């Protein structure tokens, strides 16, 4: 299960390494770590966002371990993807390696393809895929669409974006 955690660290050497310790101990697979040392909270702590895959039964152990070491756990376990968008692809969607297309988004760490529907009218006919993409913010949605535009040009797919995704 993929989870995320927002932490606040003391601005002293070694804190980031220490915050990652319990993920190793409880077999968490870290997907991304976003460390904002230059964007301190009003309290002077450093915000860190960690996305990881783990057996959910271990999340409480990780939280306890962190708190025992003086690290503030602001939020844990909730979905961190707060923005979403829809995209439609038309062309040889499946035969141009749909898995790879999706992976280009998923591998960013800041966005994921959360929903996928396919229409395949006939073997030689172009198929269509609807993708719902969720990301950590508006900017990341924009980056994801840009990746898809690139993939579309490379794989000869028509990429249809939604009008609300970008300002006029």
């Amino acid at each position, binding site marked *: 299960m993929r989870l995320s955690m927002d932490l606040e660290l003391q601005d002293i050497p070694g804190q980031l390494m220490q915050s990652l310790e319990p993920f190793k101990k409880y077999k968490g697979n870290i997907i991304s770590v976003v460390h904002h040392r230059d964007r301190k909270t009003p309290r002077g702590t450093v915000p860190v966002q960690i996305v990881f895959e783990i057996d959910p039964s271990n999340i409480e152990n990780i939280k306890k371990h962190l708190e025992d070491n003086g690290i503030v756990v602001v939020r844990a376990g909730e979905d961190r993807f707060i923005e979403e968008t*829809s*995209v*439609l692809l*038309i*062309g040889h969607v499946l035969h141009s390696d749909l898995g790879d297309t999706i992976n280009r988004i998923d591998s960013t760490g800041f966005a994921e393809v959360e929903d996928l*529907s396919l*229409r395949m*009218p006939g073997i030689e*006919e*172009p*198929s*269509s*895929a*609807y993708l*719902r993409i969720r990301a950590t913010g508006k900017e990341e949605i924009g980056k994801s669409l840009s990746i898809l535009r690139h993939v579309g040009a490379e794989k000869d797919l*028509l990429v*249809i*974006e*939604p*009008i*609300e995704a970008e*300002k*006029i």
Partner: protein
Amino acid sequence: MREVRISLVGFGIVGHGVLEVVRRKWGLLRKMGLDMKVVSVTDINGTLFDETGIDPQRLHAARTLEGIANLDIIGKEAIQKVDSDLVVEVTPTNIVHGQPGLGHIEEALSSGKHVVTSNKGPLVVAYNHLQEMAQDNGVMLKYEATVGGTMPLISLVEKNLVGNEILGIRGIFNGTCNYILTRMMEEKYTYSYALTEAQDLGIAEADPAYDVDGIDTAGKVVILANSIFGMTAKYEDVSVTGIREITPEALNLAWERGYHIKLIGEVPALTVKPMLVPRRSPLAVGGTLNVASIETDLSGTITVTGLGAGSIETASAIVSDIVSIYTSRQIDG
């Protein structure tokens, strides 16, 4: 009563519409203080001239001026020789070189005549040049009918939204594409079947490339970019994708997820491409309708919709432009 002597150059669908609207609204125009007279009509066969004003009934059934023209002059020569105040230029459009309309408009402006046109080509090719010419000669060039037909867009921005900064305009500017996509979605028609239906109804041309490949929409995007955003955009600057690759399955899939697929033109982005439009968006209009959303700094987003083409509808935009030239002049004076 202000007499307005009009030379009509181009005698196709729109030209017929202009004669008809001037006839129908003659009384109303007189109440506004305008005595509008079409003193000449020109097509490739020649010119029909009558200084007292041509009776539109006389031309009602005529497809061309063949056998009707009483002067053996056409094009620029006709514009130069006929004594008129204003030229309505409605010849067929060419977005690549703008001719013959470009030459006609240049001739009219340099002869000190106002110009009202529905012809996109000259404006796409030489908007800034033509506006400079108009200014140098103390006359006006109006072109509301070139973008969105009867839908008030240029005048809305120039008059009603004056004082606003226009941040962007996006919309559906081609009724043919909108009709095809609407029919494909509603009836699950293939692209080619919907196209033949549109052709049978006279909504699409025999050669549909101009519409379905997004060329027409891109031309309108260029006109908006240059006229409203003060850009110096050319047709080649627009990134254009048409609607040929859209399938009924894709439209259906989009619909299930709450979207339409529409061919959307955007300024100042200078893009024309099929986009997902939420079903509840004001841009989600069907059939042959056109629509535009104008994003402003003070007034928020304003959306207008209307018929993008048609003889009488386009002529209505042309006649509004003519009236606005003379009414704004009255205020100036």
